[in-house]
């Protein structure tokens, strides 16, 4: 056994889309311990709630993260709507499901691409993102934005999906599904991919529960925990089961995300098929007074939105607990004892979103 040494990983590193720093304590080629540090892109968005009124803050909430922006906006709006006692129209709830599931597809596809890039499969990375582009185009056509959708507002949604657009969504999904099956089968079957992910970074069910893992990280360890089953927005009226894998390794996390892409496509089909008629928003009158905690399922896991209002148009406090923050302790657990060469893949399998974590 050689002496222990510390190797810095990040904040600028080719596999990291966003800055996080990990001090890896190495013994030979094995990681003995990990000391994470965050705080490179803190923007103080929670403090900004004192400067923007509660309607304007929807735009700030969406900008917490560039990948899961739709569900951030939705979480904030749900919290404020609950405080104000606003009844969101059924159609708006279904449209929120459609938008939320499209953003889940695009987020998981983005992750698949980044993961392929992390283990050095460049052409697979390009092909995955080719498919993601079509989803982004469709989102732009529905909501008007490609990354920051600004579709959800307090009291409903901003734009409607007409019959023509609904048919187009179904057509595009029909066309994309075989393409997604083809590309994702490479992740699931290819020997090169499996050799990098199978049996790497296994997290047992007990550890996942104890360390507070959320989202695909938790479901890959065999815990059927999906906030969508609580039935917020229109999820209560749609049929689906949380996707669970048993192994808890990188491959299981990849499988959960791939199966969730197809689950999301199914949810969109269900939502488009059952889209009720009616208005898409209700007028917002007065100011919120009270507090509420909204919990939603983001592509990366559970997000908690706490909003406290005081009856004026400025909120008292807004707090977000984002999924990546919850997934950092399990990440450290899986990194301990892993090979140095597996560190990039392991970091990516929690689907890190550092902008979310630091807000």
């Amino acid at each position: 056994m050689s002496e222990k040494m510390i190797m810095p990983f990040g904040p600028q590193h080719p596999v990291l889309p966003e800055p996080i720093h990990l001090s890896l304590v190495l013994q030979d080629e094995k990681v003995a311990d990990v000391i994470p540090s965050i705080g490179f892109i803190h923007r103080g968005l929670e403090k900004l709630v004192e400067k923007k009124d509660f309607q304007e803050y929807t735009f700030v909430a969406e900008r917490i993260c560039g990948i899961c922006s739709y569900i951030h906006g939705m979480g904030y709006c749900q919290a404020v709507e609950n405080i104000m006692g606003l009844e969101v129209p059924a159609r708006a709830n279904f449209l929120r499901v459609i938008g939320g599931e499209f953003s889940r597809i695009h987020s998981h596809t983005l992750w698949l691409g980044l993961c392929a890039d992390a283990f050095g499969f460049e052409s697979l990375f390009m092909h995955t993102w080719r498919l993601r582009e079509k989803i982004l185009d469709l989102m732009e056509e529905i909501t008007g934005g490609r990354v920051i959708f600004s579709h959800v507002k307090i009291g409903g949604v901003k734009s409607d999906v007409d019959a023509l657009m609904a048919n187009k969504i179904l057509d595009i999904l029909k066309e994309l599904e075989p393409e997604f099956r083809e590309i994702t089968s490479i992740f699931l079957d290819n020997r090169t991919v499996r050799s990098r992910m199978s049996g790497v970074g296994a997290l047992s069910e007990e550890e996942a529960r104890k360390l507070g893992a959320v989202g695909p990280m938790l479901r890959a360890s065999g815990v059927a925990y999906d906030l969508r089953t609580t039935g917020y927005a229109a999820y209560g009226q749609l049929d689906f089961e949380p996707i669970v894998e048993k192994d808890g390794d990188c491959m299981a996390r990849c499988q959960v995300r791939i199966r969730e892409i197809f689950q999301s496509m199914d949810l969109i089909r269900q939502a488009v098929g059952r889209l009720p008629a009616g208005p898409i928003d209700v007028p917002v009158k007065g100011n919120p007074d009270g507090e509420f905690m909204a919990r939603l399922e983001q592509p990366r896991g559970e997000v908690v939105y706490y909003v406290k209002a005081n009856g004026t148009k400025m909120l008292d406090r807004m707090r977000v607990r984002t999924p990546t923050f919850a997934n950092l302790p399990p990440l450290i657990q899986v990194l301990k004892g892993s090979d140095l060469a597996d560190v990039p893949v392991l970091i990516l399998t929690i689907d890190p979103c550092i902008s979310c974590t630091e807000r």
Partner: protein
Amino acid sequence: MSFMNASKVMLRSLFSKPATAMYPVKKREPYAATRGSIENRIQECIFCGICSKKCPTGAIAVSRDGKSWEIDRFKCIACGACVGACPKKCLDMKNNYAPPATKKSTDRFVQQPQPQAEEKPDA
């Protein structure tokens, strides 16, 4: 588990057109719903200033005396709050993005004096 199952996809992409567009030559058409940039039909504007109050980033400056309406396109996030709030509906969300620029500037719209005195029906 299979070996070389990616090669079918890779071979197909070798003999097909690139998935990306040749950008400067072929420009991407924006969708009708795309939130690109804000335009003001200035002759219909009443300079009430509601748009500048509703703007979450403070990108709009309205001068009632100078009859001018100014927008900082670098601050504007194209959220459409001003378009929804405009009482005269003279603000439009265009689907083309504001062009890139080398230095920051604002776009200024000035209302031309109208020859007929039809401006005061709702006094």
